[in-house]
């Protein structure tokens, strides 16, 4: 119990450390999926471990102590009392962070729905008559694509097709769900922040690869990205994904090489890394149940 319960902590550090390398080497569609899955399982196992640590405080509950004294039983202390108290505090923080993350997600959804007002139903493309070059997918159903007139004006015809194909890929593969799942994992376990950044980058790469396949031209896809990025300039405000560090140039560079291989073995290793903390947590649960059975029965 005492070791198992801390495995999610160690393994989330490990997952965070390897995620950028996985993101660079494995095909984006596969890498984004396994990293998100591993992050969610690791975060869930971490929360459960906190619950277990908090549950050890039951030993210190006055009725339990009194009863144990009457029966002449010695109470086992699997972890120091201070750790149990800390776990309780951590759980409260996690609950608050999760609530905040959910609220932000819902707020974004509401704001996006407002952008679709006034447009006839059944149209995929929503144009905003704006001088600010922007483009993003509005998750559905039905999914929509918002592009500003400035962005459309900056691109060549084939590049406009790249842009539309890129945003369609976000919608078709439900990238917003993946990123939201990674968001919630980070809310529950801040150590996983690098994984979230990698997933955010990977869904862009994934959409780039889909667009290149749809248009059938990697070079045109790279040029579309370059032109869009140059016309968008350096607003500094759109850095919320936290991966702006050379993100566009890295995407352009990736399009100038062959698509990355699937490397299923690496993907399987990442998934295994995600399952380990769950096993650790399950083992720790078993141990705690035994302890509690000794104390309470």
């Amino acid at each position, binding site marked *: 119990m005492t070791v198992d319960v801390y495995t999610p902590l160690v393994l989330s550090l490990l997952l965070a450390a390897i995620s950028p390398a996985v993101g660079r080497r494995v095909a984006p569609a596969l890498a984004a999926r396994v990293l998100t899955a591993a992050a969610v399982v690791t975060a869930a196992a971490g929360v459960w471990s906190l619950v277990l640590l908090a549950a050890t405080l039951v030993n210190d509950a006055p009725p339990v102590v009194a009863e144990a004294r009457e029966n002449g039983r010695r109470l086992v202390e699997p972890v120091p009392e201070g750790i149990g108290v800390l776990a309780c505090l951590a759980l409260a923080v996690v609950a608050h962070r999760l609530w905040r993350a959910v609220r932000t997600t819902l*707020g*974004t959804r509401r704001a996006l729905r407002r952008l679709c007002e006034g447009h006839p139903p059944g149209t995929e493309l929503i144009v905003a008559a704006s001088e600010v070059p922007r483009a993003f997918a509005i998750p559905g159903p039905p999914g929509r694509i918002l592009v500003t007139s400035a962005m459309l004006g900056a691109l060549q*015809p084939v590049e406009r097709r790249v842009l539309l194909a890129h945003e369609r890929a976000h919608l078709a593969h439900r990238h917003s769900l993946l990123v939201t799942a990674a968001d919630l994992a980070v809310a529950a376990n801040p150590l996983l922040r690098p994984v979230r950044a990698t997933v955010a980058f990977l869904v862009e790469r994934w959409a780039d690869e889909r667009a290149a396949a749809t248009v059938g031209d990697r*070079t045109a896809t790279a040029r579309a990205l370059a032109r869009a990025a140059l016309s*968008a300039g350096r607003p500094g*405000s*759109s850095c919320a994904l936290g991966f702006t560090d050379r993100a566009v*140039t890295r995407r352009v560079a990736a399009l100038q090489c062959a698509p990355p291989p699937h490397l299923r073995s690496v993907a399987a290793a990442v998934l295994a890394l995600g399952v380990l903390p769950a096993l650790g947590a399950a083992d720790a649960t078993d141990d705690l149940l035994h302890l509690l059975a000794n104390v309470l029965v």
Partner: protein
Amino acid sequence: MADRGPHGRTERRSSGELESEVLAALWSTEHPLTPAEIQAEIGGDLAYNTVHTILRRLYDKGLVLREVDGRRGAYRPAKNAAELTADAMHEALDRGPDPIAALQQFVTGLSPEEERALRELLTGGLTGGVV
């Protein structure tokens, strides 16, 4: 041949996707476009009649207008809804980091040296690596 996918991309474009492409073409320029010009813009293998059908559908939805003076048969995009959307978007952007900034945007910010590299890519072809 460069715009041909391995699976015959153009055949698989749905009517909804074609509507988006026509609308995007009309918004990308200040001038009204004739169906023939649109046909040339979004891929020559698209039938002229198809372009006509799509334009009629966009017209029925109120998304495009027929040019009355000037060139006959030319179309331009309707601005009303697009301006409302722009206002709503600016309002959401001005409100701070939430909520639109949290979206996956097509592109994000650039550093000065990245800007230089990307400009070289667009002017000088794709011989060298970008990063």
